């Protein structure tokens, strides 16, 4: 038997009602900071997006809506190798999957990491088939 998959639709502009009711951005409450900005193809910050991260090794899941500057922040396991993620936004009809190679990223003095996401254009984030 093969049933047809239910198609995707955008989260729209009001998803915080359903998806961001409480802070869920600490995959490791004592971990290091991972921060980034979600950009559109115009280079503008996306203020109505949501990022989900999954640490498959520790089996911790997190979610963070972007703020007025397009910024998202998480606390992650300091020794995480890589994290898998999904990005959703108004104007994005299907979520996009990406992977953060945490171990390969530069760290600041506190161990913090920056990973921006670009939906389109020069320097666009690599997105994977789902």
């Amino acid at each position, binding site marked *: 038997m093969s*049933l047809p998959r239910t198609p995707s639709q955008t989260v729209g502009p009001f998803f915080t009602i359903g998806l961001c009711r409480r802070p869920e951005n600490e995959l490791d409450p004592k971990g290091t900071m991972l921060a980034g900005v979600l950009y559109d193809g115009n280079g503008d910050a996306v203020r109505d997006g949501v990022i989900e991260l999954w640490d498959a090794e520790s089996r911790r899941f997190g979610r963070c809506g972007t703020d007025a500057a397009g910024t998202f922040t998480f606390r992650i396991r300091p020794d995480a190798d890589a994290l898998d993620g999904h990005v959703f936004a108004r104007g994005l009809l299907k979520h996009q999957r990406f992977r953060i190679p945490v171990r390969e990223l530069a760290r600041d003095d506190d161990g913090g990491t920056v990973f921006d996401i670009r939906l389109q254009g020069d320097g666009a984030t690599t997105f*994977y088939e789902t």
Partner: protein
Amino acid sequence: MIDVDLVLPDDPSFGPDVQVDYPGYRSTRFRAPDRPLVTLPEELHSLDGPVFGEELLGPLDSDLTRQHEGEPLGERIFVSGRLLDEDGRPLRGALIEIWQANSAGRYRHEVDQHPAPLDPNFSGAGRCLTDDEGNYRFVTIKPGSYPWGNHDNAWRPAHIHFSVLGRAFSQRLVTQMYFPGDPLIPFDPIIHAVRDPKARALLVAEFDLAQTEPQWALAYRWDIVLGRGRGATPLEQE
């Protein structure tokens, strides 16, 4: 006046895939990815996803009509269905989250400026876990249609947003459930970004007379089918 490109002709070749750069939905212009997607290695495709337990849920999370002191205005409805994978296997213990406008077509959200009343007795958010047979059920009120800025005199058909987290990380779906017979559906670019009419029809719930409750509530049935997420075999493994 309605632009000619708001609704493109049907194209069954898309199958269940939404056209992410659908021009009639204008916000796609700078947000839809414009490069080919990269194929994931199999071990990442089949990666297990998060598992949620009952302790996450409050007793009234799936009943949007009982989250406040009084009852919300509007048409009381049950929305229920099954969560399955492409092989017809039920997905149990999956987290389903919903959000919606109130019966007047207004979201409880600071960005929503539609001059329709907020309802002090309606937040418009709910969630539940699917049971052992993959069933979910919400009690809510039928959301109203509302205007949006996409084009001149644009109105969204009534809909409920659904977020589903399956077993594999790749079994992720965010979508919208529509209501049968809604006269706005033929003009809506968001649902028409699903170009295959058969796939589009899967986004429209069925009226479910058997599940209605006399003198109380109408009912709609809507099943949700996720991709396989190879490696995650919810029935066989447990």
